[in-house]
């Protein structure tokens, strides 16, 4: 399966949540690869704790590959190369976890036929080798997104592959509105996709939202707030839910809500079982939510036309 991770704004937790998603699926035995299409600010290498990869990817990353500067993009075996102490011991029964990093100095670029063919060839190749391919797109309506839409359109070469879109947003007014605009707006994914030949219902049915850094008011994190603060936050939450529903991104369209996680506020990283149960620095709810997201990604109950 091919999964595109998109968001309207930066700082939505798109990369970090997608990386955690990849990690969970690999733990469950899937062969997973993660493509960092976030040209200009590739962050996946940092999330997977691969400090040397950024410089290694210079001239050999995805951006160089799409431009035709290198015949094959760099592939990094995360289990073997990570400096993360827990990740280094690959659990038995887990699948492969491979990162295809982007070039740091790549920046955005205009898509043409050549890029499209290269992108299609690469995905078809990865499809043979991996159960799950996660493509992390740059924030906003980017060229990378156009490339993804063009490639997955019926004429684009990846039209027959099962593909899904995850749109990440934070739980604030601005983020909710921006996410809705990114998908349903005039310049949005749906209309752009239809213009490229996508079947409207199919495309619509393949898009779900992921709310990131959502404050759960019932969690211990917020137990010390005053009654006035609590009431105010409850009110905000309710209004946001109404706003989201009004913009077409209400609860039925949400695949998962990731709670606000202090660890992720400080560091963009993978949350491991050990962080939760041994070191007790991360919340169990976060671990659970990431796991749910990973399960629901391939569970058809959560997908399709509503």
């Amino acid at each position, binding site marked *: 399966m091919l999964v595109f991770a998109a968001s309207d704004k930066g700082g939505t937790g798109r990369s970090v949540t997608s990386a955690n998603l990849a990690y969970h699926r690999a733990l469950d035995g899937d*062969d997973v690869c993660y493509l960092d299409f976030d040209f200009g600010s590739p962050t996946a290498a940092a999330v997977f704790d691969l400090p040397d990869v950024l410089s290694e990817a210079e001239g050999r990353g995805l951006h160089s590959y799409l431009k035709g500067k290198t015949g*094959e993009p760099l592939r990094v*075996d995360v289990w*073997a190369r990570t400096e993360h102490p827990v990740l280094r011991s690959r659990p038995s029964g887990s699948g492969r976890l491979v990162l295809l990093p982007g070039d740091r100095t790549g920046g955005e670029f205009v898509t043409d036929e050549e890029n499209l063919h290269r992108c*299609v*060839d690469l995905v*078809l*190749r990865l499809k043979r*080798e991996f159960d799950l391919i996660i493509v992390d797109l740059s924030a906003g309506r980017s060229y990378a997104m156009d490339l993804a839409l063009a490639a997955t359109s019926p004429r684009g*070469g990846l039209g027959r592959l099962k593909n899904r879109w995850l749109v990440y947003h934070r739980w604030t007014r601005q983020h909710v509105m921006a996410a809705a605009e990114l998908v349903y707006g005039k310049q949005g994914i749906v209309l752009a996709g239809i213009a490229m030949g996508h079947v409207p219902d199919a495309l619509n049915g393949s898009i779900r939202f992921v709310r990131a850094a959502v404050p759960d008011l019932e969690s211990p994190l917020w137990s010390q707030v005053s009654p006035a603060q609590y009431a105010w936050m409850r009110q905000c939450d309710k209004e946001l839910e109404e706003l989201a529903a009004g913009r077409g991104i209400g609860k039925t369209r949400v695949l998962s809500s990731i709670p606000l996680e202090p660890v992720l506020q400080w560091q963009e990283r993978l949350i491991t079982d050990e962080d939760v149960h041994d070191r007790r620095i991360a919340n169990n709810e976060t671990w659970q939510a990431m796991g749910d997201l990973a399960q629901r990604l391939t569970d058809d109950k959560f997908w399709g036309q509503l």
Partner: protein
Amino acid sequence: MTGLGTTGGPALVCGEVRTCLLPTRDAVDERTAVELLRLRADERVRVSRHPNRHAVSPDVLTGVDCLLPTANGTRVRAVGTVAARAVLVEGRVLQSTAYFRAPAKGPDRRQPWGYYLVRPGTLVPVGRLAEKPVTEGFLTGHRSGELDIGSVAESLLARISRRHRFLDYDTPLTTADTALRWTAAPADDGEAASLRFTKADDGLRIVELRLPRGTAPDVAAGLCEDLALHDWLLSTVNDKLDGLRVGADDGTAALKVLRPLVDHLLHLWMPQARVDRALRTTWAELEEDAGYSRQWHTLAQRVRDQLTLLHLTRRDALATP
């Protein structure tokens, strides 16, 4: 066509084989195999049915004018064409090979293209070919600006993978591709064919061959395809069985792994099906040192034993009320 190490023949043959599972749910039939491998209108796809089904595409040529990789930084410019062909084994495993032959020396100046085009699959050095550094450099891997033969092989795989009419991209199991990079140099008179086989990271295999004088380049390529196929089969089955959880649940998870192996891979083992008699000593070496066939038969037996046990366990579970 002149053979390796003969007068006027190549001093060196180099190539790379990429091996992968054909991206379809089931193995394709012979007719589809022929359609898939029809890369040129003017030449036929060669099909052989014994001892297994095997289809070979005609060679396609890629024009090249660049530096050859060398171990010591010597600049060796070579001009000509790289030949590439695709092979489909039992309609299930797809391979592509890109290879070239190189004479010990060529004209001191770059000739017009016509000169190179009458020598298909040959890279003619401008001046002398530094054989040892080129062999080592080629096997180590190219640097930027040097010949990248792997991408020639990969682009042929990509070209076939794009033929949507025949492919459903719904593979029954995920498998890692392998790349087998090889060089063949002439053996001394009286010396038997031999090989040095190394496994590197990321699915890369390195094979250094010494073959009897007069061995045709495409025969050498055939040997390497055979090596690559069996190495891929062994690696794939080994990977799938590595860490297999047999006692985890009612066996559903194990069955999910084991079943595709039986359906799609276990019947493909047939070493030296099409290897020239004079080159069989290379396989003998591999069998003796790494024990490929022994390991394969053990793994295959393990798969079958596990399935039998699963069947028994399930039957018992059904029988007990």
